[in-house]
């Protein structure tokens, strides 16, 4: 008894010790957020130790932390959510090639720029003389990372030059799709473009910059005092060449930087984005929220249409395939059954996101499906597996006695299925099917990874430009509800109708 009590008090001591260390550490740590998926030279998992990160943003975080007499502590946050994570206090500063946009300057406390980049156009080598700038790409597809300045420039290009902007969730697939011929140009910053040009033969980067902007650190507006001290730290590092050393080490130092640093050290104002040969600013920044909403509403409605059409078509195919799979599993011979069971288990056992990737990118060497078709195929094939399980369960729920009664009347097996078993099974399946359709409506947002801009993606783009999720998020939720609520009502009406006799 005594021994146990002693052990318990020892444990308490140990715990309180741990807790005190932890609070102490939090005070002296600088929590910074980045996305290693962005890769070198920004932030990438250290090839020697996957638990650590390296990159110029990592070194800048270290430089800032050291000057603040704190220890840098890295937090992984997906690139598209860094602003939100900073806003809610997950981390104090975001450093991950964050672009210097007017919206970000307005909504957050951004540091002074620490690196100047150029938005450059990458094309296939064969097209070097044909596609020199965005103006040459009328009617062609040009890709970029969604929610970036480059995407905003491409949207302007849609209106001005009649090109077609394609939004990606990462910065690798735009270039691979360029080589595959799914795109005719990629607009991204020179750091990303250089990296791809080096390891993807066949890509040329046009020398003329389309626009210029910078990378900044992002803090919450309430942290403006901390931001001010970080600005001074950065200015000092510009003056004494420490930033230059870092960027040279990562091979991205160029003549744009000394010019930028000179302006900043002289405390001159630097515009967030400058578009070559144009005085036009990134549009949304100069608009009120109301104007922005009105401007984005048509594209949200259009995106909702994409969601609806995609979901309806995918569901129709999934229902058809599901019926076939279920019939095969209930009526088929050994081998057919085994193959179909394998299919269903494979599809249910792997993430739909992965399946979409395999269909669009993985199969690209064999069959180059357009994004919408790949999205449709991916969703339909995935949901077919789930639908088939519903139908199989429903078919097996029909009492054997009724099937035997139908057989003794002389109906063939096919007629038994079509006239007795199928219709009753379908009624049983209706409620779970409606449920699945509503789920599909929302799962369809996953296809944005295949560059299909549907409702959720469009909302994200809208929110990035506006620097807030409140209005876009509310509109988006309302549109999903408008689409899904009538379905429930329709299903209830059908169920009621079928409860009545069919004479």
């Amino acid at each position: 008894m005594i021994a146990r009590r002693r052990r318990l008090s020892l444990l308490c001591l140990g715990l309180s010790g741990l807790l005190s260390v932890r609070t102490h550490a939090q005070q002296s740590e600088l929590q910074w957020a980045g996305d290693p998926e962005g890769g070198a030279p920004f932030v990438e998992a250290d090839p020697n130790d996957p638990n650590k990160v390296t990159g110029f943003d990592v070194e800048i975080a270290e430089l800032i932390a050291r000057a603040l007499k704190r220890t840098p502590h890295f937090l992984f946050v997906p690139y598209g959510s860094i602003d939100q994570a900073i806003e809610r206090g997950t981390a104090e500063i975001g450093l991950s090639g964050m672009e210097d946009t007017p919206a970000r300057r307005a909504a957050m406390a951004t540091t002074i720029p620490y690196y100047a980049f150029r938005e450059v156009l990458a094309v296939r080598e064969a097209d070097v003389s044909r596609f020199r700038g965005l103006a040459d790409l009328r009617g062609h597809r040009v890709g970029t990372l969604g929610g970036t300045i480059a995407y905003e420039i491409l949207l302007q290009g849609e209106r001005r030059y009649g090109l077609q902007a394609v939004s990606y969730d990462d910065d690798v697939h735009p270039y691979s799709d360029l080589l595959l011929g799914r795109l005719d140009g990629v607009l991204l910053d020179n750091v990303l473009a250089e990296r791809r040009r080096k390891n993807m033969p066949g890509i040329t980067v046009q020398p003329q910059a389309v626009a210029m902007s910078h990378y900044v650190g992002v803090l919450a507006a309430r942290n403006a005092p901390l931001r001010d001290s970080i600005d001074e730290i950065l200015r000092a590092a510009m003056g004494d060449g420490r930033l230059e050393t870092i960027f040279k080490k990562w091979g991205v130092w160029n003549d744009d930087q000394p010019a930028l640093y000179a302006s900043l050290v002289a405390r001159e104002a630097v515009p967030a984005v400058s578009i070559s040969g144009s005085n036009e600013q990134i549009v949304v920044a100069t608009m009120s929220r109301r104007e922005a909403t009105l401007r984005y509403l048509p594209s949200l409605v259009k995106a909702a249409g994409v969601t609806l059409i995609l979901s309806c078509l995918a569901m129709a195919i999934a229902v058809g395939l599901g019926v076939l799979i279920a019939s095969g599993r209930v009526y088929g011979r050994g081998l057919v059954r085994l193959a179909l069971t394998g299919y269903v288990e494979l599809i249910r056992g792997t993430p739909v996101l992965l399946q979409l990737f395999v269909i669009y990118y993985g199969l690209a060497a064999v069959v180059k499906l357009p994004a919408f078709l790949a999205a449709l195929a991916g969703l339909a094939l995935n949901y077919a597996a789930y639908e088939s399980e519903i139908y199989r369960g429903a078919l097996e729920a029909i009492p054997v006695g009724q099937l035997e009664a139908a057989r003794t009347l002389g109906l063939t097996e096919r007629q038994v299925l079509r006239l007795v078993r199928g219709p009753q099974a379908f009624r049983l399946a209706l409620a779970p099917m409606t449920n699945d359709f509503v789920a599909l409506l929302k799962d369809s947002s996953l296809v944005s990874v295949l560059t299909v801009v549907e409702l959720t993606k469009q909302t994200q783009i809208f929110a990035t430009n506006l620097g807030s999720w409140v209005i876009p998020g509310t509109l988006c939720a309302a549109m999903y509800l408008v689409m899904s609520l009538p379905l429930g009502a329709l299903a209830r009406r059908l169920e009621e109708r079928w409860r009545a006799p069919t004479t």
Partner: protein
Amino acid sequence: MEGANDMSAILDVRDVHLRRGDRTILAGATFTIARGGVAALMGPSGSGKTTILRVIAGLERFDRGTIDIEGVRLQGGMRPGAVLLKSLRRQVGFVFQFHHLFEHLSALRNITLAPTHVLGVPMAAAEGRAKELLASLGVEHRASALPRELSGGEAQRVAIARALAVDPPMLMMDEPTASLDPSRRNELGELLARLAGQNRTILLSTHDDDFARRWATTILRMDGGVVV
């Protein structure tokens, strides 16, 4: 006006064996049923009454023996082909103990389903005939009811009408008296006698001695998988 072979049996069951695992269900059942009349198959539970009816209806395979019914021969140990089953089912109708009406169809549609889809009778003609059948069984007022809205006796009559709609010469019924009270049993007996009078052969299984003695023209007793 039957031909010269009228005295031949409508059903000839010879030495039918059936084992399931190590249980013997039928151990050489042998009997014949003469044309016309009501034959009652009696015997304790588990004696094989229901199984022999299911075997004759082609719902169950058997290991050994033969069954002849109006020129259709079922052979033990073989899987009957689609053509054979089709001709078998023109000869034998089956009314299940629990009726097994099609739950999604009205009483009328339960009856018209097979004539329209198996015999190709036009819907209007099938409906007319179905209504006649329902009327002759005293349930014409239930034509548009769904099976779950019918009482046990009504459901049985609809099931009989459904089986008669394809006009089989022989009608088998599994335990038709089980769910009926005594007065209903007599109504059923009268109905069966009337059907037998219309040149149809009835073969039923029952536990009810009184019913069998009163209404059956032939009584067969089963025990241990054989007819004794």
